């Protein structure tokens, strides 16, 4: 692997990291608007307000970046970076197409992405504690409780796919993919995707940041660019969870003409799942913190265990 190759891959991953979350954000503006009988942003950039998020970014950059007097200054300022960087790192391991169209092949890829994704939550906890604000503290505590509850079903669902494929490598899982894995692992896909949305605090699991009750939780005291970084982390998270669900459960680049159009199928599947995430925000009201806990432990964990049992039985029968 020469230097040029490495540079190209890093630049490509960085470009995907900077562009895809913005696309999801713009799609959210427009899709939400049309589902609610509005038209959404129409002015910025001319054509259907395509430059709205660029304008938002310029606005955020111009705002004053304040740190509260009683806050723990260094941790407060470090938190957005800790929240954002893991999502960029995870993108490196997600395969876009067949034949090495991936940032870097990681042997234990599934473990790598799940492990690194967990670090992002640390950033929100740091921000929630260091703000020295009771709403931020409440948000941080709800974040931690939610992570505890949803990490288990997320890992169990991923483990089911690993058992089915017999490998921990994301590229290896895609190489072994068969179309009938989709119905076989459908329950696992539901568990993984739902738990993923819950870890990102997307509605209906957004009790940790609920603007109407605890004023955006851990982000209450943030302004300007640092707040924008937290928002960017949320949208990057949507891209990562959707892409991972597509890779693990829906065959990633598999489709007609995989060698030429593999990247297109992967992007389309990811986009469809991102659309579902946005749709969920419009369709469901927010769950209470205790309902969120109950849903994880009484619905998702048993479902994930049942999926693992099913995977094991089928695996033994066909081998």
């Amino acid at each position: 692997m020469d230097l040029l190759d490495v540079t190209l891959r890093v630049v490509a991953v960085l470009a995907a990291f900077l562009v895809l979350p913005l696309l999801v954000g713009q799609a959210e503006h427009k899709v939400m608007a049309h589902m609610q009988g509005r038209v959404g942003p129409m002015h910025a950039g001319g054509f259907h307000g395509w430059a709205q998020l660029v304008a938002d970014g310029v606005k955020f950059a111009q705002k004053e970046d304040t740190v509260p007097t009683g806050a723990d200054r260094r941790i407060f300022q470090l938190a957005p970076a800790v929240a954002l960087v893991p999502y960029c790192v995870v993108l490196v391991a997600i395969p876009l197409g067949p034949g090495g169209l991936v940032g870097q092949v990681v042997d234990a890829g599934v473990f790598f992405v799940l492990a690194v994704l967990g670090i992002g939550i640390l950033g929100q906890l740091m921000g929630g504690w260091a703000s020295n604000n009771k709403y931020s503290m409440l948000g941080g505590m709800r974040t931690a409780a939610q992570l505890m509850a949803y990490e288990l079903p997320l890992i169990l669902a991923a483990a089911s796919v690993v058992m089915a494929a017999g490998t921990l490598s994301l590229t290896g899982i895609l190489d072994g993919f068969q179309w009938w894995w989709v119905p076989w692992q459908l329950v696992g896909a539901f568990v993984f995707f739902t738990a993923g949305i819950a870890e990102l605090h997307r509605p209906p699991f957004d009790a940790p940041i609920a603007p109407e009750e605890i004023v955006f939780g851990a982000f209450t005291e943030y302004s300007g660019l640092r707040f924008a970084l937290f928002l960017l982390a949320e949208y990057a998270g949507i891209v990562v969870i959707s892409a991972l669900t597509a890779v693990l459960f829906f065959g990633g680049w598999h489709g007609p003409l995989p060698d030429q159009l593999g990247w297109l199928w992967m992007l389309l599947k990811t986009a469809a799942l991102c659309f579902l995430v946005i749709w969920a925000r419009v369709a469901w009201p927010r769950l209470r913190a205790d309902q969120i806990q109950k849903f994880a432990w009484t619905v998702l964990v048993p479902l994930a265990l049942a999926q693992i049992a099913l995977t094991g039985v089928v695996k033994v029968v066909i081998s």
Partner: protein
Amino acid sequence: MSAGALPALLAAEESGRGVLSPSGVEIVFLLVAVVVLGAAILCVTSRHLVHAALYLVVALGGLAVEYLLLTAEFIAWVQVLIYLGSVVVLLLFGLMLTRAPIGPSPDADSANRPVALVVSLAAAATLVTLVVDAFRTTWIDLDTPHGRSDALGESLFRAWVLPFEALSVLLLAALVGAIVISRARRDDSEEGRG
């Protein structure tokens, strides 16, 4: 240094794998080790509770990097997943529940500091002696990855399956114990109310 060690050391120098001509990986390994040690010391000496937890993050993350440098990829990711992703989050959750203050908490120090120092030094000395005595000049070839998940799985579920099962029974016992303790408390409080 014993009489036999010097020729062995010289032989190692000649084959290009001695202490006097370190490779890039070895230098990075040592640098990361210094960071881990520093973070660990700051973790136990810091008077800021949450800072201590965050220094623990640095120390545990540094250990994961060391595993990676030794090509034990699987263990490295498990280290990040379990320790950084779960244990530290649980720690921070506990600190938040007890409303850890911003700034130093002077009452967080205990009078046991000298005892703790003695115990930790003794433990470190024992472990270092053990590792040095067990491996001496054994050389790990880092060009072939050792910690691949398939090889680990094979040895875990073939050669080491009995300890593995014993550990899982232990964890199950801990789980049942936790449930028993939490349920017993609830019964007490209900009786108290009635």
